[in-house]
Structures are given as structure tokens and as C-alpha cells.
């Protein structure tokens, strides 16, 4: 197949994955809306079962590796009734999500084949990879905290917005890159950064939900009623759960992002003559790094835990987004590889 045909196929798959994600968002949104009674019953049954297994029975090796769908279907249907409507929507949603991820991964791989290099050389390709990582890391979160499944819609919403922007505004033809980018550091540096950003995206979504839920919990605890976002807050998982998800993802993304920045410095030393030249992109990468470092510290500091730390997390993601959109498109610098003219 020729380059053009491959690039075309990749675009088609990209569009198809957007459709899958959109349907998954609707489906998981429906699970969220129709309530989680079935889900709660399931986990309630599953939890003691796990302890029994751990206490003496055969090992639960498959536990961590199995995608949540199969865990669910394999789980004991002990409840008096079958899966509720919400539960069904949830399972369909995750199935669509996995289908979307597979198609999306294929789109990225074929784009790479079409251009005969790593498929993250311009903003469109970068967005695509970062979104793929975001969805993958949400799936990884589900393996550990399956009770968060119905939140998928909230993760998919920003992913869809970004992918739509990527496919329209940021879209760039499949092309070769300038000599400065002919380096294996492109594969290492950019992939580490995009993986980091994808994971931080999930973290920021969890943080936003945490803020809503924490506020709801505070209102309820103070006996002031449930407020305007009553239904919304009531259906979210506990604030602790969301906070932990936000922290774990950020703590996983941070070393990767740090690694990406360090690789960038090593590459800059070879390409530009200096490992750090205060290029606007580097500067904003540092700003985001400092903010996320502050988040990890704030979460361990009395008086900063909870909501304050959460806002710092959001600020960090805002810096990443600013670095990606504004610095790439508006400010000129050494990192001018956006592929937009």
C-alpha cells in the first residue's frame, strides 16, 4: 500500500475510534445516569469473595491482568436480579471503549507506517497519541478501581474534544520531518511527554470530579442540603476514592514526564548546542513540572491537603494545555514543529 493510501486508512480508523469513544461516552454516561445499584451490589459481593481467596484459596493471579469487562461477567451474579440497566450500559461502554482503543492504536501505528517514522511528529499526531494514552490509563485505573467505571464519560469528553481539534484544526498531512527531528530522541522524548500528558489528563478529570464530590460531601455533612449539583454529587464515588485516583495517576505520570523533559534536554544538547536554552516550550514544561511537584508536596502538607492540592493539580494541567496550544501556535521558538502554517 502506498503512503497516501496508508495515511488515508489511518485517518479513517481515527474517525472510527472517535465514533467508538463517543458511543462509549454515551453508554457510560447512561450507566452514570441510570444509577449503579447493580454495580454496588456486585462490588459488595465481590469484595469479601476476594478476601476469602486471599486468605487461603488459590492465588488470584488473573485479577490484575484481566480487563474489567471480563472480571464483571466472570464475577458471581449472586444478586437476586440480573444486571441492572445501568450495569448493562456500563459493560457495553467498556466494550466500546476497548474497541475504540484498539482501532485508535491501529490508526496511530498505520500513520507511523505511512510516514515511515514514529507517529508523533506534529500536533495532530501528538494529540492522537496523548489521547490514546489517556484512554489506556483510564482503563488501567479501572483494573484497580473498577467501581470508577461509570466515570468514563468524564474522561472521554476531553479526549473527544482534543481528538476533534486534532483531526480538524491541528490536522497535518503525512509528511517527512526536518533534519533536526531526525533522531531517535524523537521516539523517546516525545513519547514520554505524550504518555505523561495522557496520564495527567485522567488525573485532572479525577480531580475535577473530586472537587465536585468534596463540595457535595461538605454540604451534606453541614446539613445544608445538597445544593444545585445534588444529583451529580450524590452519584459520584467517594471523595477519598477520587482523590486517590487523581494522586495515583499524577504520581505515575510525574516520573514519566520528568523523564521526557530530561530526554528533551539531552536531545537539545545534541541538536541546539545547549541542554537548556529557556525556549518558551522548555520554560512552560518547567512551569508545569514545578506545579505538579508542588501538587505532590501539597498533598502531604497539613493545610494544603484536599481541595487546595486539587486546584494545584488542575493548574498543572492548565500549564500543559497552555504549553501545547498557545506556545505551539502563537509563540515562536525552537520547538516550532507544529506542522501548522
Amino acid at each position, binding site marked *: 500500500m502506498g503512503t497516501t493510501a496508508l495515511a488515508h486508512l489511518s485517518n479513517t480508523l481515527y474517525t472510527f475510534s472517535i465514533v467508538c469513544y463517543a458511543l462509549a461516552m454515551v453508554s457510560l454516561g447512561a450507566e452514570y445516569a441510570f444509577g449503579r445499584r447493580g454495580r454496588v451490589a456486585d462490588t459488595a459481593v465481590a469484595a469479601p469473595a*476476594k478476601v476469602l481467596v*486471599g*486468605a*487461603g484459596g488459590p*492465588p488470584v493471579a488473573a485479577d490484575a491482568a484481566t480487563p474489567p469487562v471480563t472480571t464483571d461477567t466472570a464475577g458471581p451474579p449472586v444478586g437476586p436480579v440480573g444486571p441492572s440497566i445501568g450495569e448493562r450500559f456500563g459493560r457495553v461502554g467498556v466494550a466500546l471503549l476497548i474497541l475504540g482503543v484498539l482501532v485508535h492504536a491501529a490508526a496511530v501505528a498505520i500513520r507511523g507506517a505511512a510516514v515511515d517514522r514514529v507517529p508523533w511528529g506534529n500536533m495532530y499526531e501528538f494529540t492522537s497519541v496523548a489521547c490514546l494514552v489517556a484512554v489506556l490509563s483510564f482503563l488501567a485505573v479501572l483494573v*484497580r*478501581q473498577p467501581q470508577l467505571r461509570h466515570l468514563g464519560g468524564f474522561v472521554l469528553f476531553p479526549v473527544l474534544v482534543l481528538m476533534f481539534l486534532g483531526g480538524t484544526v491541528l490536522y497535518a498531512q503525512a*509528511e*517527512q*520531518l*526536518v*533534519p*533536526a527531528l*531526525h*533522531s531517535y*530522541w524523537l521516539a523517546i522524548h516525545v513519547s514520554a511527554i505524550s504518555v505523561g500528558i495522557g496520564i495527567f489528563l485522567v488525573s485532572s478529570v479525577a480531580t475535577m470530579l473530586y472537587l465536585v464530590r468534596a463540595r457535595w460531601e461538605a454540604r451534606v455533612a453541614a446539613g445544608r442540603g445538597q445544593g444545585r449539583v445534588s444529583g451529580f454529587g450524590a452519584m459520584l464515588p467517594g471523595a477519598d476514592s477520587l482523590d*486517590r485516583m487523581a*494522586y*495515583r495517576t499524577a*504520581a*505515575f505520570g*510525574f*516520573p514519566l514526564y*520528568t*523523564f521526557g523533559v*530530561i530526554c528533551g*534536554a*539531552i*536531545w537539545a*544538547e*545534541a*541538536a*541546539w*548546542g*545547549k*541542554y*537548556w*536554552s*529557556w525556549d*518558551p516550550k522548555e*520554560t*512552560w514544561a*518547567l*512551569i508545569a513540572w*514545578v*506545579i505538579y*511537584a*508542588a501538587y*505532590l*508536596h*501539597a*498533598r*502531604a*502538607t*497539613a*493545610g*494544603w491537603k484536599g481541595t487546595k492540592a486539587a486546584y494545584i493539580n488542575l493548574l498543572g494541567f492548565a*500549564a500543559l494545555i497552555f504549553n501545547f496550544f498557545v*506556545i505551539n501556535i502563537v*509563540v515562536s521558538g525552537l520547538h516550532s514543529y507544529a506542522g501548522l502554517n
Partner: protein
Amino acid sequence: MTAVDRDETVASKAVAPEPPAADTVDSLSTKPTLTAPPAGRRFAPLIRAWRWLTSMRTALVLLFLLALGVIPGSLLPQRPLNPQKVDTYLTQHPTLGPFLDRLSMFNVFGAPWFAAIYILLFVSLTGCLVPRIRLHARALRSKPPKAPKHFTRLPEATTYESDDSPTAVAAAAAATLRKSRWRIITRDEPAGVVTVSAEKGYLRETGNLLFHVALTVLLLAVASGRLWGYTGSILVQDGDGFCNTVQQYDSFNPGQLVKGSDIAPFCMSLKKFTATYDKDGTASDFRGNITYTEGLNGPEKHDVLQVNHPLRIEGLRLYLLGHGFSPMFTIRDPSGQVFKDVSAPFLPQDAAFSSQGAVKLPDAKPKQIALDGLFLPTAAETQQGVLTSIWPEATSPKVAIFVYEGNLGLDTGQPQSVYSLDRDQLSNGALKQVGRKNLAPNQTYTLKDGTTITFTGYKQWASLQVSRDPAQTYVLIAAGAILVGLVLSLRIRRRRLWVRVTPADADSGSQRTVVELGGLARTDAGVFTDEFGKIAARLRDPAAPRERED
């Protein structure tokens, strides 16, 4: 400071059961400087200031200030990076510009207030690290704490019975845990009760400290690299060369502490520069064939400079950063003097290398002569009749030149750009335009006064940069250590485990040995529940297949 620790604090919940047995490390590490000896009242404000400076809250505020402080550096033009842009900004913003300038907004990374932020952060970091390292060293030598009285108050607890004697059960438990690299100590309690205390995950704090120490080292290495390093840039045409002396550079930026002896003796010459392009006009490769000599009398060596592949020799690195064209002219002035194949570098203006520049002949007679205009490597005429370049390679080069005669103004003492003529000389009429012409190679333009200008061809030039940073290896090592420290401190969990074995006792009605098991993760409780279950299973039945715990 700065513990990426103490997140997920189950500790707060779990410290409750037995305060003395619970962690001394935690209570101290929350306020690491509180152990300072009592001092006279005179020093009280100083001590308070020191505590304030080394507190985590202050460190957080300083981190934010740092992030905030670099923002103008990324959005406003910066003098060290691009002085021309700063000047343009100043002329465009006559009121705001000077005000920002007074705040060092055009040299943020060299500004006093910026230095103040990072020096404070640096002091805060060090002031907090030292006591913490001491504490951790003590913790590493100390034994796991005594078992609390009631395990049921711990986040993880379970109990089972055994037929073995308490000592045997405790010894077996100790052996099993030791095999999984738990640090353990067995203690005897009254009435034949045996306890085993186990702790694991000391590497977390080790990693945390490594991260912060490495960060400090990194900052020091960056600073010393800036003080003892230098960069110089120079533009070299095919066939020309230069030696590593300050005078030869087009621009030279030394660190404050650079001495003459730091500038390694080195000479190079550019044999040939080649650029290759894909069918769609994107560059696919730039390479400069060079010869160079190292030291005072070194042998001549050969190398190919490429983007991403600098020449690295002892004491310096040589980079290929850009390239362009220098058109060549043979000019005969009215006095009959011939200037053969004079050339000057023209600066590329677009992706197809339409390049702009100037050629100056101060020795021409009777008047000085100058050309300025465009060099077009692959010339084409637009519909408006203007020449433009449509391809970055010189397949059909042309020049579009203006010819000037008069006084170039080179003797005024003011430095002039080599790429353009002095605007003042043009506007005050000292230098007058006397003709304009588009020329293909070997075409000649004859002016009214008899001056002839022949476009004889072109050379390519490469812009090179020489850099020296004696500390950059240390920066890299520190960065690697930062990463290792981060991964250790964020992935490893500190956890404690206690086993209490009570002998069979008719009084309590128990016929068998009772084994109680309690556990506490100081970080990330969720995962520990699984691990605790698995450990419990293994202690109960050592024959059970072993699980991976981490």
C-alpha cells in the same frame, strides 16, 4: 519541606492505637526542625525565620513564585536570546517597555529577583534536607517498633490458630518475612507471648532524599556550567575556516569566570556544505565536511558535522546550526580596479531560501560601492513581475540587486551589520542608489559611470556554534539521580507488620496457639490490603505458592 511522602496517610488513622509504639519517624519528619536546641531569646526571631524558611509551606510558595517568575521569560522577548526583538518591543511600547525593562523583564533568567527566588528555594531545600537525612540515617539503624496492644484498631488485622508452639510460629513467621526482605525483630512479652515486628520500604525515604539532594546538585552544576562555560557563534563559507579565539567569533558569550586558558586551542575549516531535500521541499539532510586540528600542533582530522551530530572534542563541542548562500560578484570600478569573486553571506528569508544581504566595497574608487538585494536559489517570476525563490536548492540561481555609490559610513566608528547597509547613510544622501538589475550567472550589468557588476556564482555558508560547559556531565548524572529518586519515592510504600503469638491457655479457653496479625501501610492503603491478605495466607500455610507482593 518536601516529602513526596506522607501522602495517603493511613498513619493519621493508625497511629491512634499505641502512640509510643507508633512511628517516631513520622512525628519528627512532620516538623523536622523542631528538634533545634533551645537558644537565647536574642536568636528567637532568627530561629523563627529559619523555621519559616525551611517549612514545607514556604517551599510551596517559593515553588509557585518560581513558576510564576519564569512566565514573562517565555512570553516577552529576552535579551540574551534575541536582543533585536527586545529593541523592537521597546520601540513599539514606548511607555510600557522601559517600565518592564526596569523590572528586568527582558532578562528574567538573569534578574536579581529571579535569583532571589531560587536562592531562597535552595536554602529552604538544604535547611530541610540536612535534618531529614540525619533522621533517616537514624531510622535505618533503628529496629521496627513494638507491636501495639490491640491489632483490631490497625487498618489491617486478622487472626488464626495453630498447633505449633509460640516460639516455633514466631520463628517461622520471622523466617518467611525475612525471605521477602522485611526488616524484623522478635520480642518476648509476659506470659509466653512472642511478637514479631516487621517493617519494609525504607527505600521510599531514601529515594525521597536522593531526589532532593540530586535536585540541589543539579542546580549547582547548572550554575557552575554557566559561570565557567561559553558559547561562540560564527558563520563560515565553503572553503573558509576559523580558529577558536574570541576575536574571530561573530558573537561570543562567556560565563563570568571564564579565563583565556579555558578557550581550548582548536582550528577548523569547512570543506564543503551540502543540503539535500525531499521531493516536497522539506530538507532531509544537512552536512558539513570539515577538517580540524586540536591543540596547538595537533594532526589534521576529518569529520562530518550534521544536525544532531556535533563534533565533540576535549574541552568543546562544535555544532552545525544553520546554512545559507553567499552570492559572488566580480566588480570593476570606474578607476579600473577589479574585485574578483567578492561574496557576502545572505540571510535566508523563507523556506525556499530567498536570501537577503549586502556586499560592500569600501576600497572602490572614486566612490565606495555597495550592493544589496536578494539571492534566489531557484528563481521564478511572480505575476507581479517580482523575483522569488521556489526551491531551496540552487538549481537556477538569480540575484535581484540594487547598486549604491557614495560613503558607506564604515569610518564613523559605529558597528554595522554585514547583512545590510547603514540606513542613516542612505537617508542623509551620503549613499545613493545608482541602479537596479536582475542577474543570472555570468550576466554583467554595466552602469552609466562604467562600473561593471558580474554575478559569477555562489558559495554556501554554514553557521557554527562552539560551546563549552564543563559541568554538563554532572547535570546529566544529577538528572538521572532525580529520576531514580522520584521513582523510588513515588512507587515504594513504607509498611509495617506485627505478629503476636499467644500460647494455648486454659484460662482464655483457647486450646491452640493464637496468632494475631496486624498491618499498617504508611502510604497508599488500597494496594496494601491485597498484599496483607497474601502475606497472611503465606504465614498461615508456608507451603502455599508465593505471591509477588510489590
